[in-house]
C-alpha cells in the first residue's frame, strides 16, 4: 500500500564548524543540497541583477538624467538581462528539479549524482566569470569592462570592430559554461524521471510537476545547442577571423538572430513551464481538489513544448522577412496561445468547486493567474504582426516580457518557495513578513510594469539611457521607478524572512499543508536517503489514498 511514514526522529546534525559545513557543500552530491545551492546562488544573482534594474530605473526616473554614464547603463541592462535568464531563471529551475523530482517520484537521489554536482559548479563558475568581466576585461585603453551588447547580443555589434576589448568574449565563454551546467542537469532530470520512479509510479501517475520538469528539460536539450553553436561561431568570427556574422565580408547579421531566437523563444517556455509546474501542485492542494484534467494538462504542456520551437522568428517581425514568413510565424505564435489558455482554464477548473485556502503560496498563485492572463493577452497583441511593428523593441515589449518573467515566472517560483520551504527547512516562512513581501511586490510590480506598457504606446524605445522631456514619458517613468523601489523592498523583506525563519520559524512537521504527493510523506527536512523504505503508489495522490482509505483515488483512475 501507499507510502509509509518514517518513524525516525528528525535527524539533527551535530553542529559543525563553518569550514566543515563549507567543505560539506563542496563535496556534496546530494540532490537536496545541490538543489538548495542552486536556488540560493540564484537568489544571490537575483539580488545583484535586481540592483542593476534599480540602477536602470533610477537613471530613467527623470528625463536627461546624469546619474549613469551611457556605457554604464548599457552594461547594466546587458548584465541584468543575461543574469536574470542564465543565472537566476535557469538555476532556479535546475534547483527545483533537483530538489523535488527525486522526492516526488519516491527515489533516493538523481540518476547521476556526480554529474549533478558538476552541473552546479559549472553554473556557479560561469556566473562568476561573467561578473569577473567587470575587473578582468579592460580591453583596449578605456574600452571594455562588462559586456554591453544587450542580452541577445545582435550581430554585428558583437564583431571586434564594434565591440573592442574582451567584454563580449566574457559574455560568450561564461554562457557556454553555464550552458554545459544546464545541459547536464537536464539530462540528469530526464534520466531520473524515466529510470528511477518508485514501484507503481507509472508515467501517468507522476505528479504534474515531474511531468512539466520532464518537458522543460527536453526543451533545454533541444534549444541550448542553438545558442552554444552561435556563440562558438561568434568566437570564430572574433578570433580566427571567420565571417559567419561579419557583414563586411558577406556574412549575415540576420542568421545570428535566427540562431539566438531558436534558443531564445523556447527559453521563455523553459522558464515558464516550471512556474506552471509549481502552480499545478499548489493550486490543487489549496483548493482541496485534484488537478482538473490531468491528462489534458500533460498534453497541453507537450504541445507548448512542440509549438514553442516553431515560433522563434516572432522576435524578428521588423527585420524584413517576406509577408509569407511573417504570416507563418504569426500563425504559429497564435497557436501556442491555445494550449496556454487550456492550462489557465484547467487551473480555474481546479479552483472551481473547491475550498480555497488563502495561504501565502496560494496568494502568489492567484496573482500569477491574473498577471499571466494579461501577459498572455499582450503576447497575442504582439503576435499580430502589424501591431508588432509598432510595439516591438518598445517599452511595451519590456512590460510584456517582465509580465511573463516577473508577474508569472517569479510569482510562480515564490509560490513554490513558500510552499516547499517548510519541507526543505522544517520551518514555515513567517506569514506576516510573507504578506508584506506579497503586497509590496504586487503593488510595486503593477506600478512598474503596467505603466511601461503605456510608455511603449507613446513611442518609447527600449534600451535608451536617457530621453528628452516633453514626449509624454516623464510621469510614466517616474511611477515605474517608484514601483521598482517598492519591488526591491519586497525582495529585502523576503531575504530577511528566509534567513530569520530558518532559525525562528514555526516548526512545520512532515505534512504542513495536508498535501498529497510523496515528498510530504518523509521528514522535514528529508533525511539524506529521502525515504526509509521505498514507497509504492497506486494513484496520482498517494497521500490522499493514505488519508482517505474510504475514498481512494486509485478507484477512479
Amino acid at each position, binding site marked *: 500500500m501507499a507510502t509509509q511514514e518514517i518513524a525516525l526522529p528528525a535527524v539533527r546534525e551535530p553542529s559543525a564548524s563553518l569550514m566543515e559545513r563549507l567543505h560539506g557543500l563542496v563535496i556534496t552530491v546530494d540532490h537536496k543540497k545541490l538543489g538548495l545551492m542552486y536556488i540560493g546562488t540564484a537568489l544571490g544573482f537575483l539580488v545583484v541583477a535586481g540592483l542593476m534594474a534599480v540602477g536602470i530605473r533610477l537613471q530613467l526616473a527623470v528625463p536627461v538624467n546624469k546619474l549613469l554614464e551611457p556605457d554604464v547603463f548599457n552594461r547594466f541592462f546587458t548584465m541584468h538581462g543575461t543574469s536574470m535568464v542564465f543565472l537566476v531563471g535557469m538555476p532556479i529551475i535546475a534547483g527545483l528539479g533537483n530538489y523535488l523530482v527525486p522526492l516526488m517520484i519516491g527515489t533516493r537521489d538523481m540518476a547521476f549524482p556526480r554529474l549533478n554536482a558538476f552541473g552546479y559548479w559549472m553554473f556557479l563558475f560561469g556566473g562568476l566569470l561573467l561578473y569577473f568581466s567587470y575587473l578582468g576585461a579592460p580591453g583596449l585603453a578605456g574600452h571594455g569592462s562588462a559586456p554591453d551588447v544587450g542580452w541577445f547580443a545582435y550581430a*554585428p555589434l558583437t564583431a571586434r570592430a564594434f565591440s573592442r576589448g574582451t567584454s563580449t568574449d566574457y559574455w560568450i565563454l561564461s554562457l557556454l559554461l553555464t550552458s554545459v551546467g544546464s545541459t547536464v542537469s537536464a539530462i540528469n532530470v530526464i534520466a531520473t524521471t524515466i529510470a528511477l520512479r518508485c514501484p507503481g509510479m507509472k508515467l501517468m501517475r507522476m505528479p504534474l510537476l515531474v511531468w512539466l520538469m520532464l518537458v522543460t528539460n527536453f526543451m533545454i536539450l533541444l534549444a541550448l545547442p542553438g545558442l552554444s553553436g552561435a556563440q562558438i561561431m561568434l568566437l570564430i568570427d572574433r578570433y580566427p577571423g571567420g565571417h559567419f556574422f561579419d557583414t563586411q565580408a558577406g556574412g549575415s547579421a*540576420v542568421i545570428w538572430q535566427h540562431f539566438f531566437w531558436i534558443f531564445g523563444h523556447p527559453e521563455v517556455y523553459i522558464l515558464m513551464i516550471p512556474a506552471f509546474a509549481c502552480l499545478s501542485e499548489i493550486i490543487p492542494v489549496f483548493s482541496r481538489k485534484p488537478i482538473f484534467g490531468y491528462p489534458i494538462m500533460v498534453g497541453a504542456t507537450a504541445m507548448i513544448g512542440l509549438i514553442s520551437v516553431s515560433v522563434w522568428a516572432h522576435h524578428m517581425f521588423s527585420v524584413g522577412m517576406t509577408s509569407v514568413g511573417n504570416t507563418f510565424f504569426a500563425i504559429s505564435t497564435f497557436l501556442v496561445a491555445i494550449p496556454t489558455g487550456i492550462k489557465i482554464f484547467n487551473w480555474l477548473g481546479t479552483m472551481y468547486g473547491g475550498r480555497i*485556502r488563502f495561504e501565502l503560496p496560494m496568494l502568489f498563485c492567484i496573482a500569477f493567474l491574473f498577471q499571466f*492572463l494579461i501577459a498572455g493577452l499582450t503576447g497575442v497583441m504582439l503576435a499580430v504582426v502589424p*501591431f508588432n511593428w509598432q510595439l516591438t523593441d518598445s517599452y511595451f515589449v519590456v512590460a510584456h516580457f517582465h509580465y511573463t518573467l516577473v508577474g508569472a515566472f517569479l510569482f510562480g517560483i515564490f509560490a513554490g518557495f513558500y510552499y516547499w520551504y517548510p519541507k526543505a527547512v522544517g520551518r514555515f516562512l513567517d506569514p506576516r513578513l510573507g504578506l508584506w513581501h506579497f503586497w509590496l511586490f504586487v503593488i510595486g510590480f503593477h506600478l512598474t510594469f503596467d505603466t511601461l506598457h503605456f510608455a511603449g504606446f507613446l513611442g518609447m524605445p527600449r534600451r535608451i539611457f536617457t530621453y528628452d522631456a516633453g514626449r509624454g514619458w516623464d510621469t510614466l517613468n517616474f511611477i515605474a521607478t517608484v514601483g521598482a523601489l517598492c519591488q526591491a523592498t519586497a525582495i529585502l523583506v523576503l531575504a530577511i524572512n528566509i534567513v530569520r525563519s530558518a532559525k525562528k520559524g514555526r516548526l512545520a512537521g512532515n505534512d504542513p499543508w495536508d498535501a498529497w504527493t510523496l515528498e510530504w510523506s518523509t521528514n522535514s527536512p528529508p533525511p539524506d536517503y529521502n525515504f526509509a523504505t521505498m514507497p509504492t503508489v497506486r494513484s496520482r495522490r498517494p497521500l490522499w489514498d493514505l488519508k482517505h482509505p474510504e475514498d481512494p483515488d486509485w478507484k477512479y483512475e
Partner: protein
Amino acid sequence: MRLSLYANQRTLRAVIVFAFSLFCFIGFGHVEPAFGKNDGVTNIFRPLSQPAQEIKETSFLVLLVCAVIFIVVAGLLIYAIVRFRHRAGDEASEPPQVYGSNQIELAWTVLPILVVFVLILVTSRTIADIQNRKAPPGAVQATVVGHQWWWEIRYPELGIVTANELHVPASTGDKRRPAFLKLQSADVAHSFWVPQFAGKTDLIPNKENRMWFEPTKPGTYLGNCAEYCGTQHARMLIRVVVQTPEEFDRWVRDQQQATSVATNVADSRKAFFANSCVNCHTIRGTSAQGKFGPDLTHLMSREMLAGGVVPNTADNLRLWLRDPQKIKVGCLMPNMQMTDTEVDEIVAYLQTLK
C-alpha cells in the same frame, strides 16, 4: 493546526477592494494622457499617416478581443475565488473530488481556436496589404543609411544627400506622394521608427529593407532608433519634416545647389580645410569628400545637430567643435583639440552652408 492568514474575512475583503481600487486609479491615471491630446507625443494611437492608421484600426480590433477575453476569464477567476473560498467549518470535510471533464475541455479548446482563427485572418490580410504595397508614380524615393549614431539620408533620383532630417511632401487628396524608403546600414543593426507614420523596419548591414508611409499633415515628427546599436543608441533621433508639395519642391531645389563660396569667409574656409574635417565630411563642390560623417553641404538648413541632440545654433556648433564628447559621449567624432580661434573660424564657415 492550519495556518490561517485571514481569520477575519473582512480584512481579506478590505485588502482586495483596496488593491483593486488602487489598480484602477493607477490604470486610469495612465490611460488618460496616453489617449489625450498631446503635441510632440509620438502616440501610436494618434497616427498621421498610412500605414500607422491601418495598424491602429487592426490594433483596436485586437485590443477589443483581448479585453473581452480578459473580462470573461478574470471574471470567472474572481467568481471562483470568492464563491469557493474557504469558510469557517470547512475543515471537517473535503469538497467533492472532481477529476476533469472531457466536454468542458473540448469547449475551452475549441473557443480559443475560433478566436485565433479570426485573428489569423485579420493579421495575414493586414500584413499583405502593408508589406506588398507598390510605389505609385509620384512617390518620393529615398535611401536611409543607419550609422552609429546618426542617419544618412539620400535621394538618389534628386541627387541630394543630407542627414537626420528626412523631408517628404504631404499627400493631398488629388496628388498622392507617399515616401518609399530603402533602408541600409553602414555598421550595426538599427531600426527606423516614426510611431505616428508606420511601424519599425530594421536597418541591417548587408541587407536592404523597404518601408513606406504617406503623411498628409505638414509638420515635424519625431522618431527614434529602435534597435540597440551601441553607446549612443538613445540619442539617435529621427525627424521627419513633412512639407506642402510646393515647400518640398523648393527645399529640393535649395538642396540640389552646390554650396556658395562666400568670399568674406575665406579665412574661416581655410581653417576648415586645413583641419582633418574633410576626411570624414562631404561638402559638395569642394575638396571635402569624406564619407564617414554626415554631409555638411547644407548644414544650416537642418534644425538640430548631432543626431537630434541639440538645436543647430552657433553656440551649440561652437560647443560641439570644441569637444563633441561633451555633448554626445562616445560619439565617433573625436575632440580635434582646436584652438578657440580655429573653432570660431570654422563655425563662421559652417554658418555659410545654408
